[in-house]
């Protein structure tokens, strides 16, 4: 039982698709374009557009409401 549980845990870890990116290999990740919060004005426009088209606001983050019923 212990063996199969441990094996299952290892298997889940190996198959998770996650990889540790070393700090010195983060050149592309450090690019400002990879920061979703870097373009605030663009986000504001997109949110305005979304709320107009969908007739609802919020839902963009886990903290907000929103019906999540687009399309």
């Amino acid at each position, binding site marked *: 039982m212990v063996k199969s549980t*441990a094996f299952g845990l290892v298997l889940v870890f190996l198959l998770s698709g996650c990889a540790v990116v*070393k700090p010195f290999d983060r050149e592309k990740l450090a690019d400002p374009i990879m920061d979703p919060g870097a373009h605030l004005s663009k986000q504001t426009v997109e949110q305005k557009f979304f709320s107009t088209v969908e007739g609802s606001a919020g839902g963009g983050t886990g903290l907000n409401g929103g019906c999540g019923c687009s399309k």
Partner: protein
Amino acid sequence: MRFFPSFAAWVLCFSLSFAGTLPGQMAPAFTLPALVRGPSVHLHDLHGKVVLVDFWASWCPPCRKSLPELARLQARYPALVVLAVSVDESRTKAIAFLDKKDTMSIAGGKLTALHDSTRQVAALYDLQGMPAAVLIDKQGVLRFRHDGYALGDLDKLGDEVKGLLGEH
């Protein structure tokens, strides 16, 4: 239950794989080309000197603060050899970073700027943060390593340098 020891060993090996080169071990040898101009630098040629290897990158905001501080440290301890190793893929970006106003002290020749474009040396030392500094004593033993940067870190590093320079 017999499985547990092997699982624990696996966890230990996994943890150690993130530990990098630890203080007390011989510093891995390397040869790196100069970033701007000059000959390549071989670590073994610096045997008998205290060497500070600092890894930095143009995309690393704290490096903008740490590099001038390293130049000041080098000015305070002229016997110290400081190798400022860029891990940028692009040499042009790295040089442009050095040419900016707040890092001009490097361009002034106080530090030896090297280029690790393939990041093989960074991997060899298994850096856990950026910037990262390793301090190597006169016998080639890695004595101190510091990953990341915070205000006051260089004071601690300065104390270590002072201690190592006083050793025979």
